[in-house]
């Protein structure tokens, strides 16, 4: 019991004094996950829009793939990206392994299907009368599409937040491709794993508090956003 209490006291001190290592770890985690989500959004939206607005051969197959990839185990993603980026892999020449860039790539692969699937779902489950109404009021295809995107905006924002939640709390992939190198590729989750194993509970607890606070903040934003009537 004493260890835990001492751990929390020391953890609070580390956070409040902005311990440089904690700041570096938190900053890296944020940088990697936010980058993955921003890039993921840019790449996932075209997929979601193509699935929502166009019919093409193999569409249902693609929907199934996206839905399946949503549950991809991060360790498997890590292994896959590792193989591609390792010296003997197809992209080995880029020398990205054990860098934040490699971590972003791995999280990107985790995030894309999440954003694409949730966004597609929210657009395709809209009432079909919405499009007819827009068209009957004079909207062209692009304008009607934009209206549907706006109608699905709650779901799209949800997909972004869900993507961020998955990225920031993921360990397996960034551990494999990042290598957990101090002041370089050490993120919140991989640091907690390491410090716990080393018995450095103060640091682990401090990082855990930060991670929890982030997850909590994300959830608060999400539920607040969903509960509120959409502004105009």
């Amino acid at each position, binding site marked *: 019991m004493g260890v835990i209490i001492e751990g929390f006291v020391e953890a609070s001190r580390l956070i409040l004094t902005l311990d440089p290592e904690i700041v570096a770890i938190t900053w890296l985690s944020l940088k990697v996950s936010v980058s993955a989500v921003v890039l993921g959004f840019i790449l996932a939206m075209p997929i979601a829009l193509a699935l929502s607005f166009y019919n093409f051969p193999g569409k249902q197959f693609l929907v199934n793939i996206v839905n399946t990839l949503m549950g991809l185990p991060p360790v498997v993603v890590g292994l896959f990206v590792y193989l591609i980026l390792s010296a003997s892999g197809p992209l080995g020449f880029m020398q990205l392994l054990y860098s934040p860039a490699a971590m972003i790539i791995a999280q990107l692969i985790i995030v894309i299907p999440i954003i694409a699937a949730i966004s597609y779902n929210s657009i395709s489950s809209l009432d079909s*009368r919405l499009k007819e109404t827009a*068209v009957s*009021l*004079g909207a062209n295809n692009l*304008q009607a599409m934009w209206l549907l995107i*706006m*109608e699905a905006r709650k779901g799209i924002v949800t997909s972004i937040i869900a993507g961020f939640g998955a990225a920031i709390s993921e360990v397996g992939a960034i551990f494999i491709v990042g290598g957990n190198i101090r002041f370089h590729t050490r993120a919140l989750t991989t640091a907690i794993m390491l410090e716990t194993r080393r018995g450095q509970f103060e640091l682990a607890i401090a990082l855990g508090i930060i991670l929890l606070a982030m997850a909590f903040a994300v959830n608060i934003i999400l539920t607040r956003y969903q509960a509120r009537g*959409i502004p*105009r």
Partner: protein
Amino acid sequence: MILELKGITKTYGQQKVLDSVCFSVGKPEFFTILGPSGAGKTTLLKIITGFISSSGTVHFKGRRLNNGFPEGMVIGFQNPIMFNTSVFNNITYGLKIRKKTSNYIEGKLRDVLHIVRINDLKRNALSLSGGEVQRVALARLLMLDPELILLDEPTAHLDPSNVGNIEHILHKVNKEMGKTIILATHNINQAKRLSDRLMLLIDGRTVEISDNETFFNKPKSAETSRFLKGDIVW
């Protein structure tokens, strides 16, 4: 003649939903397509607006309609749906996508609100009651200053006071604003109250097209008399 339909036929599988329907509507007429549910009213309106394909021809202002939604015509759907945004944004949508200036939009809005009473423009439209939804849907159409307004059962699920309110608005839109209206309804009394001319549609067949007086007092078809007496079960 603002609208002219010739030989409109539509089949779904084996079922002939519309059987060579022909009629024309002048300006500014109040024309009603009266018929029991399942008669083909909604299908007919969607054919006119190009949402459903069919055989036969539709001419609007002398031009044959092919595809795309015709400018100058609007449709109020059975159970209109509101966009998830303010009442104001719903009503002004059609003009905003046409890039009209806010001065123009405000002017039009004033004209329309003069006919259709709407209290709170800032409210989210998803929170409106059934009667309010119908009024906002009407206002949304009227903003476009259409020459022809198609309406599909605009009072189907409303209580009597709202029905009266909407009918009053439609009457004004037709007689004061001079808009041509084609109303699809199963409501005989409503048809009688509002129409200049009517068409009785049963099972996709045109039973009779007459002016109000003839239709209700000395119908040309025995089937019309039976329909009006309530002998046709539907």
